[in-house]
């Protein structure tokens, strides 16, 4: 009754569908961290992007408006982080945590404040349509993989495009090079005339904006149903911070990281179905405690961390000045 190939395809398809917000969060955080700032407020930033993007998208019945507003709303969180840590030199860790608390608070405040006026996604046909799967010509005809990678919604393709674009920007443009210099050694960058303040502000805002797009994705993936018992983002923001390390601060590697983390994330839901479809090969999945699936990505992250520290600095993408505030007079 249950075709094993079908179950496998569904499982792989959902790994991509469910976990793409991780990619947005990770790529956004990479942009922020490449500017030398450690923003622990990803969770809150995504929540703010999600709720305002969704509400605006519904009101205007437009994907573009939704994307734009989620980018801007989350960008404002980034601006707040920048004001506090760059201009006022506040501790980055504490500020990041504050942004998370603030963002989640704002999410619930706005959501519960809407009450009965909360818009159902079915009202906004453009959002429903925008989130419908699009089959790419030819590619989607490949067995299994065609469905998994090339029959997704537009925001999945956009996420991958953003990741590749950011990778190109960081590695192959002059401003990208300067940005990396700011993250590695702001004093040196400053001495050759890079405007540290401007670079930090722009990239903290842009990075946070990208996180916000991930939040908007989560909103659509939840069909915009707000119940207010827990936040849509649901810890994805925290996983994204771990993914940055896993991906070694490389946006293209983040795509792979998203799939790896997503694999375990979704395995939790699909373990029973997989065990049922492949009783011989995967029957043991039912005996694995779900807590292990939740822990595995972080165990892998720990291993990656150890591996990269054993290799010393060589090949590590971590900006040298990450988490340190830059104070010009102390240069």
């Amino acid at each position, binding site marked *: 009754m*249950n075709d094993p190939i*079908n*179950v496998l395809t*569904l499982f792989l398809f*959902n790994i991509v569908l*469910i976990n793409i917000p991780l990619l947005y969060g990770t790529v956004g955080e990479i942009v922020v961290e490449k500017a030398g700032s450690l923003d622990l407020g990803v969770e809150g930033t995504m929540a703010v992007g999600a709720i305002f993007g969704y509400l605006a998208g519904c009101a205007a019945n437009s994907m573009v408006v939704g994307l734009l507003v989620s980018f801007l709303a989350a960008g404002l969180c980034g601006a707040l982080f920048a004001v*506090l840590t760059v201009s*006022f*030199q*506040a*501790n980055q860790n*504490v*500020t990041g*945590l*504050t942004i998370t*608390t603030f963002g989640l*608070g704002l999410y619930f405040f706005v959501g*519960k404040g809407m*009450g009965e006026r909360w818009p159902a996604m079915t009202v906004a046909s453009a959002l429903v349509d925008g989130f419908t799967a699009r089959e790419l010509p030819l590619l989607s005809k490949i067995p299994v993989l065609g469905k998994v990678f090339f029959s997704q919604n537009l925001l999945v393709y956009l996420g991958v495009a953003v990741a590749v674009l950011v990778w190109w920007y960081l590695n192959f443009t002059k401003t990208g090079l300067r940005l990396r210099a700011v993250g590695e050694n702001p004093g040196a960058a400053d001495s050759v005339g890079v405007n540290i303040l401007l670079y930090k502000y722009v990239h903290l805002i842009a990075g946070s904006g990208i996180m916000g797009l991930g939040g908007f994705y*989560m909103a659509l993936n*939840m*069909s915009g*149903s707000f*119940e*207010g*018992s*827990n936040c*849509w983002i*649901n810890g994805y923001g925290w996983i994204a911070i771990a993914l940055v390390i896993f991906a070694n601060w490389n946006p293209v590697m983040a795509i792979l990281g998203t799939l790896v983390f997503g694999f375990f994330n*979704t395995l*939790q*839901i*699909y373990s*029973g*179905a997989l*065990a*049922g*479809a492949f009783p011989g090969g995967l029957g043991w999945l*039912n005996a694995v405690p*779900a*807590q292990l699936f*939740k822990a595995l990505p972080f165990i892998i992250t720990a291993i990656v961390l150890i591996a990269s520290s054993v290799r010393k600095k060589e090949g590590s993408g971590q900006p040298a000045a990450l988490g340190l*505030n830059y*104070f010009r*007079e*102390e240069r």
Partner: protein
Amino acid sequence: MKKILALALAAAMSLSLAACGGGNGGNNPGGSSANNPGSASQPGTDVSTPVDSKSDFKVGAVYITSQNDTAGYTFQHHNGITTAMKALGLDPADLIVVDNVPDNDDTAVATAIDTVVNQGADIVFGISFGYINAMNDKAAEYSDVIFSHGTGYMANDTNFNNYFGRIYQARYLAGIAAGLKAKELGNNNIGYVAAYNTEYAETCSGINAFALGAQSANPDVKVYVNKINTWGDETLERQAAQALIDTYNCGVISQHCDSAQPQLVAQENGAFGCGYNSDMTEQAPNGHITAAIWHWNVYYQTAIQAAMDCNGDASKFVENMGGNAYYAGLAEGFVDASPVNEKTAAPDTKAVMDAVRELIVSGDWDVFSGVKLSYTVTDGKVEITKTNADLVDNAGNVIVAAGGPSVDDGVIKGSMNYNVAGVVEG
């Protein structure tokens, strides 16, 4: 200069964080000065004075989330307590509450209980399972105050009891609705999004009762359980429900988890569902059929009345309650199935459910027994046929031999740890 500024900002932020955390209680929980006996032990130190005026009686509660919630577990309990207070002539505005008390932190629970007691509460309700140790300790410490703990198993013989209900009876009724719907759809696959399964008697008894109810209406159904390993997580609940529909083509989705997401997913996919805790027809009018629900006010009214009858002698509470564990079901009106949504239900659903409800209320039959039910409906008249049959778990072990009595004590004492035949881990 820079360091001072950074320090000042960091300090301001951590202070604001602390302020948020502390503000939840609406009271200063750390204030040990509030421990003076003035208001705390009023009923105890002055045992001879009976509480003659009803309005003198103070009710307190410790909540896992907020009394301002508009849905969910705390909402249901808060609603129950305030409804009971109104019925007993108490002013709900006098209810003493500490909100947002995490149930994995004994110290926080103890502090919350101190806060409630120090404001003069005569009875303290703790609604979450994890409050169990703190409730037990505080019941010994404040022997002049009554403690009542929901979903727990600890108690003493004087001022501390626990309470829960035979929600499995309501789930059996919901199962009937699901089984009839499956029959109407011609699709024997039913999905069940569960917080946990055999780890807790509460969850697996619910799954089993639901499956048995569904099988009574349609012997061919299979119940696929997708467990999410948390009591509430909107995202996971949605994903699990979607996976059940995608992989098993389930036409009906039931649930034991906090949010209405499984019902919403069912509706979005043109499927149907049975909710839990509240009548989810409100959220999913085109998908939801009926939900297993609690009428917490039934217990709270009984308990507050019993506490008021103690006339200040808290040690008589357990005696007044007729025991230290309250475990009522359909008969007492403590649990029930929510009104059937005629728009989604299969024909005769309500009639069959009503007939079985009557049978359970009469006490002649209970869910986990060696007697199976089946139904024939003619012109709206329901005839229940009882057949002796083994109650078998899904590994083939006989739990109750044909004709044997119900093993509901497996639920009450928490020892049930199996799934009945027809339940599949999905």
